[in-house]
């Protein structure tokens, strides 16, 4: 192991995992962009009112969970990586719930979601999910390296 790598690993004992934490926060930013964009599709039907109501509640849960995970990964806690992966999977799944259903639907002779809006919200959710997966993977790699290094110091 080169001196630079050894120093970088030793440095992890005293520095936060800011890369993972920032990626998780970036995922929140893209979720918020999605959140802001989606409500243009409220056309007052019962189906969309229920879906959007559930979406609002889920967004609140997501904001809290993703923020807690960003704090958790900052301290190299590997469990939070799994939570981030779950959140990422749900973000991908969300593409197939609201945007996919709204896109192409016609209510009162009006399209519920146009092509431009659809592409935008799908990108937001996809990038948010990618950030969550990246955050989780970076944290997994770093926390395993740190755990191995700490164990070698204690041995």
């Amino acid at each position: 192991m080169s001196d630079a790598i050894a120093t970088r690993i030793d440095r992890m004992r005293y520095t936060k995992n800011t890369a993972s934490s920032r990626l998780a926060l970036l995922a929140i930013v893209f979720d918020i962009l999605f959140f802001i964009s989606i409500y243009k599709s409220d056309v007052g039907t019962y189906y969309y009112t229920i879906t959007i109501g559930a979406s609002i509640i889920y967004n609140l849960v997501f904001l809290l969970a993703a923020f807690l995970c960003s704090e958790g990964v900052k301290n190299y806690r590997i469990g939070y990586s799994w939570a981030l992966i779950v959140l990422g999977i749900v973000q991908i799944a969300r593409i197939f719930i609201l945007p996919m259903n709204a896109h192409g639907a016609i209510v009162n002779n009006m399209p519920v979601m146009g092509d431009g809006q659809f592409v935008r919200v799908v990108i937001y959710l996809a990038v948010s999910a990618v950030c969550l997966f990246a955050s989780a993977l970076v944290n997994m790699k770093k926390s395993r390296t740190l755990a191995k290094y700490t164990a070698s110091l204690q041995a």
Partner: protein
Amino acid sequence: MAELQLQHLDKIYDNNVQAVYDFNLDVKDGELIVLVGPSGCGKSTTLRMVAGLEDISKGKLLLDGRDITQAPAKDRDMAMVFQNYALYGHMTIYENMAFSLTLRKENPNVIHKKVMAAAEILDLTAQLNKKPAQLSGGQRQRVAMGRAIVRNPKVFLFDEPLSNLDAKLRSSTRREIVCMSMGHVQQVGTPLELYDTPNNLFVASFIGLPPMNLFDVVFENGKLRGKGFEAELSEEQKDMLRSYDRKTIVLGVRPEDISQGEGILAKVSVNENLGMNTLVQGYMGDNCRVTAKLRGWASYRSGDQVSLRFGKMHFFDKETTNAIRKEAR
């Protein structure tokens, strides 16, 4: 290599209060200078002027011969450790120590090595992941010092940091003391010089604990006559005081220079055993108070009579307060 020169520095505040008068000092590379003096004598103001945190009203400040009198603090390559530590409460000890280097955008691995080296010297390695609030006062003081050390500046300025300084850090330094009072430099020298040959009454009374005994005495017929005692002088001392015949001068005797023996009678008021020594306070005559640090264990009671002998004596001019010394011939 760094050499610092303070030339005729004055500090006059906007309200015309002068805090420092004509401060002159040369600090050589590797030299440790300690400013001592009572509260408000100008120690911190002098340090802040050197650091660039206070404007210099008059005089020049040179670092390696370069005039930095008007240079901003950030361009002086000096690190100052503040009396109140000034640590960032929300950062860990590691982050506090690395902060200045992080701002300079140094390589994180280089920062890490510097922080770890400083932490090792200051015995802070086990505390690096803690926050300042979790540390004791002494540890916080060391963190503040570590933050200065990692910068590797040309000059370190420490405002009252020595009480908890690690011995490893002290071992390789030479020390000189600058004794200050009311903004004036009273004496510059090694601790022993200030203790042994104080320039004036202020230095004599400020350096040493318990402080030096000071008595008003009259030099008469080759003897010193005080209130309730007389002291014999050597020929050399008589010669030195020749111009003060029948005049009042101040006699100074350190408590540790007083021993038991034929000479001056004193009535004991307090007997305090310190282990190897005994601190005896008493009165010579009716109200001439004296403190003696006697060798060994003594058990005097209040009211007991003790016979004392003065060892090394210091003489001061009553009017100028300057030390009376043998003139060079």
